[in-house]
């Protein structure tokens, strides 16, 4: 460990000793004033450069007293070239104007043309928000998490849901960050929609391997979502009317270009629609989400951001002789951030985050009642620094502390009533408090024009009651550029995770409960190796990549077979522990520009688990082990008015545990003797293949309303165009009269057409 740190510090300090001056500043959108994240800043001819960080800030060292041409470029914007001859450090904020582009020039990503080749990271995917809005929608709602599922190495969970599983990891192994706050369950409508309103999102980055050291706390992926900052130049109203929701976004300047705001809200009117159908009066559903953000520039060196998010779902179904439920869940986050510049080379961001998550599900089927309750409250303080000593290095370091307060419990049993009155007594539920902290350091190093390194180390620590855990997480990514259009990359990462979502293999509701690590529940740990080859074609219009990975996961958690939770149950004692491992190959071919663009991704993977106390101690496939996962996404821009997009998904079916045999039992007493099931393996059956085709046609136009110009669009989407009955789950039973066994398949989502209208003033 010491050697690792010394190497990083030595390399950094040696190269930092070269003589130079520094230009630094922000790159902004000239029309909205929003920060342009990932803008390429480079010195013409010298082939050295950098890119803006998550706040649009850059810092670049250039030779002293020497004329240089600095080029600022961001796809979709007019590049700017600045000739500089500097004797001392210089602050330079650049405003780039959007480029008016024809359909032939349309690009689907805003990053540098061959960034996938040159960047010293692998297994990182930027999700173009502009493209998200063009892709097929379900119920008229475009959804960033649905697009995530179409990327290589990312698999969807159950039909129609926004849950995603990355490189063999469980859903809890994804850290979903919204403006640096953790969102534990980013779903609406049982997962049909995510709780992220695409109108309020600025940037989405998915990391599934080769994690930079600033990220930790989850084994499998980081989904980093930034909210828009709000237009600081003019006021805009952006809205949409869909089949089940309406949304409205308002943004504009405050305090003469010093501040801006954005407020975006979305609400379903399902509850109102259901009231119109008396036969459905037993069903109740409502959800909403609200995003709000204010940013305030105090000076060139100081800037504050305050962002807030709240999403909430309420569902209920109460009727005789049926599955009754009352389900409430929601997240809220509040983030206060302070950007500060210590001179031209050191950028800092200090954040104070408060986030909450609550899930309460009461279900009643027949005489069986079940209630799950899970609440998390986190308070986080963190400071991150970015140090730009010279173009060869970008050093990041920081510290983070989080106080978790977790209330997990559940109960299940037999009641002879249809009532869904509260059974769990919140006063009896034991709250668990845990502290999680970490320090990290990461250096992105350009060793030569061809060879780059990303070296880092993260040291997490965790304490609950008298139990403490410490970790050591080396991170390394190597990049070797073979040519301007080809590179080889390799990555190694170690991750720890102290919060666990214990999955239930039977329930079709999101009944999973978050648990903190404890003396009994050890932290999860993963080790991942990845190797990739990246190759672009036709002047970077086509990107291709192939990545292979191998990941091991220790201290995986599951319920004991047959666990029946009671209010008094110590959940830690109902758990079993094992290990998992996953390996696979991911292919991606993407067309970035032109009238027709899109991508094809394919993943071939295997994920297995082994628990001494499950499946007779034998290896079994992970619940979301899918051998093949193919996605094809296409967008065709006919003209400035019409766009058609489609996606096709084909995956192997999920696995499920079904009995293979039956046996008579005699010593159980007269009443209970009879036929029992013989299981030969956990997850021993695989559901049929899953496939569907979704299409969307968008008509855009410009018009005026009360002398006010606006842009409008009608979006017609059809989910599951050929209405394939994809298996959601299957079950077996024995007919009570004929005593013949039978199997049934339940499918959920047939063809779903939807129409929505969006406008922007």
């Amino acid at each position, binding site marked *: 460990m010491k050697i690792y740190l010394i190497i990083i510090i030595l390399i950094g300090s040696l190269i930092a000793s070269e003589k130079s001056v520094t230009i630094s500043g922000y790159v902004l959108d000239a029309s909205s004033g929003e920060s342009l994240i990932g803008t390429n800043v480079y010195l013409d001819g010298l082939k050295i450069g950098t890119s803006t960080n998550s706040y649009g800030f850059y810092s670049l060292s250039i030779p002293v007293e020497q004329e240089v041409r600095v080029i600022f470029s961001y796809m979709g914007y007019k590049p700017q070239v600045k000739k500089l001859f500097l004797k001392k450090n210089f602050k330079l904020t650049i405003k780039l104007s959007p480029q008016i582009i024809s359909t032939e020039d349309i690009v689907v990503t805003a990053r540098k043309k061959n960034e996938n080749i040159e960047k010293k990271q692998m297994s990182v995917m930027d999700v173009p928000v502009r493209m998200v809005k063009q892709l097929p929608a379900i119920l008229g709602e475009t959804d960033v998490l649905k697009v995530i599922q179409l990327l290589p190495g990312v698999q969807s969970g159950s039909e129609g849901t926004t849950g995603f599983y990355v490189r063999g990891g469980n859903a809890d192994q994804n850290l979903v960050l919204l403006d640096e706050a953790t969102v534990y369950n980013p779903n609406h409508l049982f997962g049909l929609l995510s709780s992220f309103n695409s109108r309020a999102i600025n940037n989405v980055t998915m990391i599934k391997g080769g994690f930079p050291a600033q990220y930790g706390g989850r084994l499998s992926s980081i989904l980093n979502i930034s909210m828009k900052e709000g237009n600081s130049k003019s006021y805009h109203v952006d809205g949409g009317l869909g089949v089940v929701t309406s949304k409205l976004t308002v943004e504009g300047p405050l305090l003469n270009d010093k501040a801006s705001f954005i407020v975006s809200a979305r609400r379903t009117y399902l509850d109102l629609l259901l009231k119109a159908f008396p036969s459905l009066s037993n069903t109740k559903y409502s959800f909403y989400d609200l995003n709000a953000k204010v940013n305030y520039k105090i000076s060139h060196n100081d800037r504050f951001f305050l962002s807030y998010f709240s999403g909430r779902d309420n569902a209920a179904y109460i009727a005789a002789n049926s599955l009754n439920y009352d389900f409430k869940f929601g997240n809220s986050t509040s983030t206060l951030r302070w950007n500060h510049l210590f001179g031209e080379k050191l950028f800092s961001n200090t954040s104070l985050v408060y986030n909450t998550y609550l899930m309460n599900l009461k279900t009643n089927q027949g005489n069986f009642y079940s209630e799950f309750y899970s609440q998390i409250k986190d308070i986080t303080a963190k400071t991150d620094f970015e140090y730009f000593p010279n173009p060869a290095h970008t050093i990041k370091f920081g510290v983070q502390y989080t106080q978790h307060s977790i209330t997990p419990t559940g109960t299940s049993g037999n009641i002879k009533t249809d009532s869904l009155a509260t059974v769990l007594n919140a006063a009896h539920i034991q709250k668990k408090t845990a502290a999680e902290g970490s320090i990290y350091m990461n250096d992105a190093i350009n060793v030569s024009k061809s060879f780059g390194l990303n070296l880092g180390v993260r040291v997490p620590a965790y304490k609950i009651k008298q139990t403490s855990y410490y970790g050591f997480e080396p991170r390394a990514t190597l990049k070797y550029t073979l040519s301007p259009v080809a590179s080889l990359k390799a990555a190694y990462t170690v991750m720890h995770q102290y919060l666990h979502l214990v999955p239930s*293999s039977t329930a079709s509701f999101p009944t999973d409960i978050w648990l903190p690590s404890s003396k009994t529940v050890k932290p999860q740990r993963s080790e991942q190796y990845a190797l990739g080859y990246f190759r672009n074609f036709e002047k970077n219009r086509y990107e291709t990549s192939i990545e292979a990975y191998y990941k091991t996961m220790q201290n995986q958690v599951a319920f004991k*077979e047959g666990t029946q939770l009671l209010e008094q149950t110590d959940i830690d004692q109902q758990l079993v522990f094992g290990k998992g491992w996953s390996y696979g190959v991911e292919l991606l071919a993407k067309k970035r520009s032109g009238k027709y663009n899109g991508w094809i991704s394919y993943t071939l993977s295997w994920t297995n688990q082994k628990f001494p106390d499950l499946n007779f101690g034998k290896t079994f496939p992970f619940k979301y082990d899918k051998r093949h996962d193919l996605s094809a996404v296409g967008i065709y821009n006919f003209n400035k008015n019409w766009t058609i997009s489609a996606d096709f998904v084909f995956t192997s079916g999920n696995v499920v545990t079904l009995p*293979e045999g039956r046996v*008579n*039992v005699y010593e159980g007493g007269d009443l*209970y003797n009879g036929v029992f*099931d*013989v299981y030969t393996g956990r997850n021993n059956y695989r559901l049929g293949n899953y496939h569907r085709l979704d299409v969307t046609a968008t008509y855009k136009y410009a018009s005026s309303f009360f002398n006010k110009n606006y842009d409008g669009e009608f979006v017609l989407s059809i989910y599951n165009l050929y209405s394939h009955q994809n298996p959601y789950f299957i079950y077996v039973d024995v007919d009570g009269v004929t005593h013949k066994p039978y*199997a049934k398949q339940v499918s959920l989502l047939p063809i779903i057409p939807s129409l929505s209208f969006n406008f922007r003033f």
Partner: protein
Amino acid sequence: MKTTVIILSAFILLLVNNCEKNIVLPVHDYKSQLSVECILEPNKVPVLYLGKTVSYFDTLNTNTDLFVDNALVIISTSNNHDTLQVTSKYNYYRCQQEYFYQGTIPVVQGRFYHLRIEYNGSVYEADTETNVHPVEIDSISFVANFSDLYGEHEGVVVTFTDLLNEQNFYRYRMDRVLTKSKKDIPNCANGPFAASEVGRSVYFDTNVDGASLTIVIEPAFQHQAGDTARIYLQTLDTASARFFDDLDRQKSAKINPFIEPVFITSNIPGAFGIFGACNYSNSVKFTYPE
């Protein structure tokens, strides 16, 4: 407008209905196993149920269908060998003849027993020790309303003192004489018949070693004031307790959609089932007050 209403209706129906259809599962190659159940009880001759497991979708499922009548079954100690013979009795509750193997030498407390089954060229063997001690019932009473995992019900209350310094597992048993006039009793019994009602639950003495314990059991069959029964507590060895606990939890898992499926653990290599030992408490007469 009409189109919109149709779309909305379709969506709302989607939320409350799902599509369910019968399917033919691709049946895996399932290798039938011998199914063995033998719980040795002191002073009783060994009784062993021998059958076969069948593929889930096999229509054969009764004792008559699945009984294995051509096996050589030997239960032995260091002193003797008891070769069990096929016999049968009529189960009035299930309205069927039930076949099993029965020995001739009563089981002795505190001995090691070895089971050997030869069938179809294969040999299946297991061992057990009859070192399970009986427990004494301290008192029996009745409660009209009681609420537990299985809901709210009446209950027979059994109080006993756990055996000190040993790990114990208990089941409850009630022997009664039933007639078909009772609710839920099949009508193949022309007259009164003896029924043995063993509780599903296995009670563990974890963390309560030597303590006075009370368990409340829901009676299985209909009763009326004045009906009498004899109540026992069965003490099980570890393997038998696990086997019956697995069965109990599997039953709960099957009928409660919120529980994981339960695999049943066998202690007979190559076969499904249990070779274990039990003992019984004193019997206590119980009269239903209502």
